[in-house]
C-alpha cells in the first residue's frame, strides 16, 4: 500500500499579469500514497486551489514535475490530459458545478459519455452511483430541483463515474450547512475505506478530523506535513 499516486517535484506556478508576477506556488515537493486521506490547509490566498488544479491536470505548472499514478504529466498533450482527468481523477467543487440543463442521472453519465461507454451500461452505473449516495429517488431531478447537499452528492457520484483512483475536492462542504456537510463526510469516509485516495482542501474541522495526512500550505510553500492520528 505504499504506491505513489501523486508526486510533486519542485512545482512552481507563476501568474504573469504583465506588470506584476504572482508566485502562487514557490517550489513544492511532496508525494501522496495510494489510499491516503489528505487534508490540505492554509490561509486564504496561500495557493491551495492552485495546487489542487495542477494536481487535477486542469492547469500546468510553470516549472517542476507532476506525476500522476507514476506518469509524468508535463509530457502529455491536451487530449492525453483530458483522458487522464476522465479516467484517473474525480473532481468535487465547492460550488457543485453540475450542468443545469441536465438531470442528475445525465450529469453522472457525462464523464462516461466522454469515456465512450455505451448507453445502457453507463445508465446502469449512473443509477447505482446515485443510489449509493442516497439519491435513488431523484434520478430525473434537475440541479435547481435539488438541495445543496443533494447537488453535492450528485457531484460526488459524477466524480466516481469512471471509478477513478483519485478524488480531489476543493472545500466540498464550504457551501453546505452542518447536517448536509456531515452526509458528505460520511460518503468521503466510505470512499476512503473502499480504497480511493482522497485529497481535500478544507477549513472544516469535522473533515480535518477524518483525514490521515495534513499538508499545511503558506505563501505558496509547504509549511509542514503531519500524520493525523485521532483517537
Amino acid at each position, binding site marked *: 500500500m505504499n504506491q505513489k499516486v501523486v508526486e510533486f517535484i519542485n512545482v512552481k506556478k507563476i501568474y504573469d499579469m504583465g506588470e506584476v508576477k504572482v508566485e502562487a506556488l514557490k517550489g513544492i515537493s511532496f508525494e501522496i500514497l495510494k489510499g491516503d486521506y489528505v487534508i490540505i490547509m492554509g490561509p486564504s490566498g496561500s495557493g491551495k486551489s492552485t495546487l489542487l488544479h495542477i494536481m487535477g491536470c*486542469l492547469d500546468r505548472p510553470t516549472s517542476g514535475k507532476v506525476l500522476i499514478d507514476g506518469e509524468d504529466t508535463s509530457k502529455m498533450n491536451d487530449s492525453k490530459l483530458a*483522458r487522464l482527468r476522465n479516467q484517473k481523477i474525480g473532481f468535487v467543487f465547492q460550488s457543485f458545478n453540475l450542468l443545469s440543463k441536465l438531470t442528475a442521472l445525465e450529469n453522472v453519465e457525462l464523464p462516461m459519455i*466522454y469515456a465512450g461507454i455505451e448507453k445502457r451500461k453507463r445508465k446502469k452505473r449512473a443509477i447505482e452511483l446515485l443510489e449509493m449516495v442516497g439519491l435513488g429517488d431523484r434520478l430525473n431531478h434537475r440541479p435547481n430541483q435539488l438541495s445543496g447537499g443533494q447537488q453535492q452528492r450528485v457531484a460526488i457520484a459524477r466524480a466516481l463515474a469512471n471509478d477513478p483512483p483519485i478524488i480531489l475536492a476543493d472545500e466540498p462542504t464550504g457551501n453546505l450547512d452542518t447536517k448536509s456537510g456531515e452526509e458528505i463526510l460520511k460518503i468521503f469516509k466510505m470512499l476512503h475505506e473502499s480504497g480511493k485516495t482522497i485529497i481535500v482542501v478544507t477549513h472544516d474541522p469535522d473533515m480535518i478530523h477524518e483525514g490521515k495526512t495534513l499538508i499545511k500550505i503558506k505563501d505558496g510553500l509547504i509549511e509542514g506535513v503531519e500524520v493525523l492520528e485521532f483517537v
Partner: protein
Amino acid sequence: MSEIIIESIRSLMSNKLRTFLSMLGIIIGVTAVITVVSIGQGTTENVTSRIASLGSNVIIVMPGISGGSGRAATQLSDILSVSDVEKIRQMCPNVSKVAPILQRSSNIGYENQNTVATIMASTPEIFDILNLEISKGRKLTYEDEENFENVVILGYDVAQEIFGDEEPLGKNIYISLNIGNSSIKKLFKVVGIMKKLGSKLMYRPDDSIIIPFSSADERIFYSQGKVNSIIASADSSENSQIAMIQIDQVLYDRFDTADKYRFISQESIMETLQETTAILSFFLGAIAAISLIVGGIGIMNIMLVSVTERTREIGVKLAIGATRKRILWEFIFESVLLTFIAGVIGILLGIGFSKLTEILASDFNLKTSVSWQSIAIAFGASTLIGLFFGIYPASKASKLDPVEALRYE
C-alpha cells in the same frame, strides 16, 4: 456522436425564442431565394413555351433600330416594303412561305358595341406561317387579296367582345380611322373567326383582326406598299438558319447595310432570353449570398454569446474529461444544426410563398416552379454557412482555459 446531436437539440430548445430569432436571417434569406428563383424559373418556362409557340421555323424581319439603345433608340419605319416580300418569295429557295404585315391599333365596332383591336393586314400565308386556326367560317384567300375585298377574320376575344352570343359571320363591322381631324368608318364583312390561340410571341391573334393586305393598303392605311414587318417560314426547322441567311442576302443587297433590318427568330430570342436569365440569376445569387452572409454573421454573433454564457459549463466539461476537440464539435454541430433547421424552414416557407404567389397572381397566368436544384443549393448553402460561421465561436470555446472557465461567473 449521437450524444452531441441530442445535446445540441437540447441546447437549442432551451432558449426557443432566441434560437428562432437567430435563425431569422437565414430563414428570410432562404425563403426569398426559393420564392424569387421559383418565380423566375416559372416565368422563364412560361416565356420559353410562348416562344416555342411561334414555331421553330418562323423568321420575322423587323426594321432596324437606330440612335443608340434604350429609350433613345427608335425603330426605323418605312424601310420594308411588299417588293422585299416579293424578292424573298422568288430568291430564297428555303423560304416556303412569306407574308407582309401591317399592324395598327384601331377602334372597331358593330352596332352599339365597340372595342380597340390590333388590325393586322396581311396575305393568306400568315395563317400557315403563324399556324392560325379557324373555328368558324374561312381564312383569307388569294381572291380576297386580288379583288381588294373588305373582309375580316376576327380574333377569338374580339369576336366575343363585340358579338357576344350573336352570330358574327356575314355581319359588317366598322373600322374607324382618324384622318386629319375627321374620323371615317370603313365596313368589313366578317368571314371567319379564329380559335383561341394565346399569344404568338409578338403577335396576339386573340385580340387582333386580320384583313387582306391589298385592301388595307389601298383603303385604310394608305401605306403605298410599306410594311411593318415581314414574316416567313423556312421549309423545315433545320433549314431555318439557311433560310435566314438567304433573306439576309436579299435585304443586304437592297440596303447595302445590315443596320436597317433585323431578324427575330425563336433561336435568337432564346439566346437573348438566356442571356437575360443569366444576368438575372447572377444578381439574385449575389443578393442571396449577401443575405445569407448577413444571416451567418447573426449566427456567429449568437454563438459567441452562447460560448460566453456557457463558459463555466465548458470548464466543467473539460474538468470531467471532455477533450477540446469534443467541445469544438459540440459548438460547430450546434451552429450547423441551427442553420440547417433555418434552411428547412426557409425552404418550406419559400415553397409556400411561391404557391401563394401563383394563386394571387393567377389572373396574370403567372406560374412558379421550385426546382430540386434550388432546394439542394439552399440546403447546402445554409449548412455551409453554419459550418463557416460556427468555426470561430467553436474554436474559441475549445481553447478556453479550464481553470479560468471554472472561475467564470
